């Protein structure tokens, strides 16, 4: 689905050259996969997401989305149609004054007939459970609801893959939960490839694969269990681990026979019960 080879990127070229924001990234994401990218601020994770959608083109190397190279400018709209993107600030990505009009914005841009747009808008709003709000104005919605409308706006374009660029960073805990559940639903039930960029570690535990970025490079990669069990390495990168994993890790270092690959409370409880 997405393939990056030897990817380098810097924001400005020439005299006022900035250091590389991406420093040789190689990755491959398969169709239907749920990949979470974590890393602290300035690690290059947002930059990487913007290359996946053709907003930026690589300085060196190449990135191919569903068989199309993003440096191919004629195909840029095709790429954006196939790889949708949800941004951090829900307020700054809604265009219209009414929810359903906003969801229709993408399909309208694709030049679809109006019955098809109507159908897609209703379907997308239904998927994110926002049908009841379709005639409402966006500024009357909560942060989580706005973000779900933004997701519906992307869904209505029927992308194969959606890139989420820290969609939960500006939300309260309940809004975060709504959005994360929606994302997981899209991957499981709608079979959409998901790339979720976040700095909340607990949002990564249901992923198929976790990538850890630091200084423009992918420094760790693996299943959530593999990645989060390396507590000390993650800490050295300035990252946290999910609380359950941290507790397991501490118990293990204290000499108890606990695996440090626990991600959920239930897993840890089951292990602790076995101890006695």
């Amino acid at each position, binding site marked *: 689905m997405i393939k990056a080879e030897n990817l380098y990127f810097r924001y400005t070229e020439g005299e006022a050259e900035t250091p590389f924001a991406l420093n040789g990234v190689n990755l491959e994401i398969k169709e239907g996969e749920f990949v979470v990218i974590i890393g602290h601020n300035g690690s290059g994770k947002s930059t990487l997401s913007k290359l996946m959608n053709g907003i930026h083109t690589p300085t060196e190397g190449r990135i191919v989305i569903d068989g199309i190279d993003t440096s191919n400018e004629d195909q840029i709209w095709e790429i954006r149609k196939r790889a949708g993107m949800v941004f951090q600030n829900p307020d700054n990505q809604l265009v219209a*004054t009414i929810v359903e009009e906003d969801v229709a914005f993408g399909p309208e*841009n694709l*030049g679809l007939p*109006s019955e098809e747009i109507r159908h897609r808008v209703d379907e997308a709003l239904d998927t994110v459970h926002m049908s009841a709000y379709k005639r409402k104005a966006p500024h009357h919605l909560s942060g989580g609801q706005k973000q779900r409308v933004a997701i519906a706006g992307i869904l209505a374009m029927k992308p194969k893959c959606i890139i989420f660029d820290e969609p939960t960073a500006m939300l309260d805990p309940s809004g975060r939960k709504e959005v994360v559940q929606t994302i997981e639903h899209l991957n499981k039930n709608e079979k959409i490839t998901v790339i979720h960029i976040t700095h909340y570690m607990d949002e990564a535990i249901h992923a198929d694969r976790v990538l850890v970025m630091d200084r423009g490079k992918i420094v760790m990669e693996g299943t959530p269990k593999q990645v989060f069990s390396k507590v000390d390495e993650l800490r050295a990168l300035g990252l946290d681990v999910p609380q359950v994993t941290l507790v397991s890790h501490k118990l293990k270092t204290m000499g108890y026979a606990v695996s440090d690959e626990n991600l959920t409370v239930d897993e840890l409880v089951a292990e602790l019960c076995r101890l006695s």
Partner: protein
Amino acid sequence: MLRDITIGQYYSVDSPVHRMDPRFKIIASMLFLVSLFLIEDMLAYLLVIAFIGAVIYKSKIPVKYVIRGLKPVFMLIIFAFLINIFLTPGEEKVSFWIFTVSIEGITRAFFMAFRLILLIVGTSLLTLCTSPIELTDGIEYLLNPMKRIGLPAHELAMMMTIALRFIPTLLEETDKIMKAQMARGADFESGNIMKRAKALIPLLVPLFISAFRRADELAMAMEARCYRGGEGRTRLKVLKYTSLDAIGAGIVAVYFVACIIV
């Protein structure tokens, strides 16, 4: 405080006037404005008032709500009224100091005030009965023929939609910045005009910076959703004239002709 401001306030009820096509409503409002400047005598004014009264009745909008729209321009109406009373030359009726009041002045002042009131009621009826989205759609359609002479109809309509979308967001932000500055000792409410204007700087600077940042992010989000101008774009809702518009057109035509005759 700032939240009370509503621009292009839309009164959401289901009425025949609301269901009419926005293009028709825009044209009808324009004809109504023209008619206001054609009429001169009492009888014609009664006709206009009867017409606008009928529209308000049919639109199911409470009269009180329509009148409330006059509040911000109340001072202007009074001012126009007084100017006309005192400065219209004619047969002298009463005079004191440098002012003279004539019969012509009084009638003209009344007509002028009524004309202003009807003007505002007429235009606010348009926005009360038409949602902002429909309104911008209508404007885009009506401006379409002007594209040939280089008028960016689609871009204008898009700008209006985005402006309408961000008015509440920016008002909310203004409120937030104001409170933040007040918490740090800023004073927006005392002092003379100069002092107050100066106090607004710490409000306006962050507001503008944030507006530019928003514009930047919005542009990126729009591009990510394949926005590439009006070309090849379709619409969720296609505007269609209905029998309702035909009836409306008939009524407006009769009204307009009557205005010219009277």
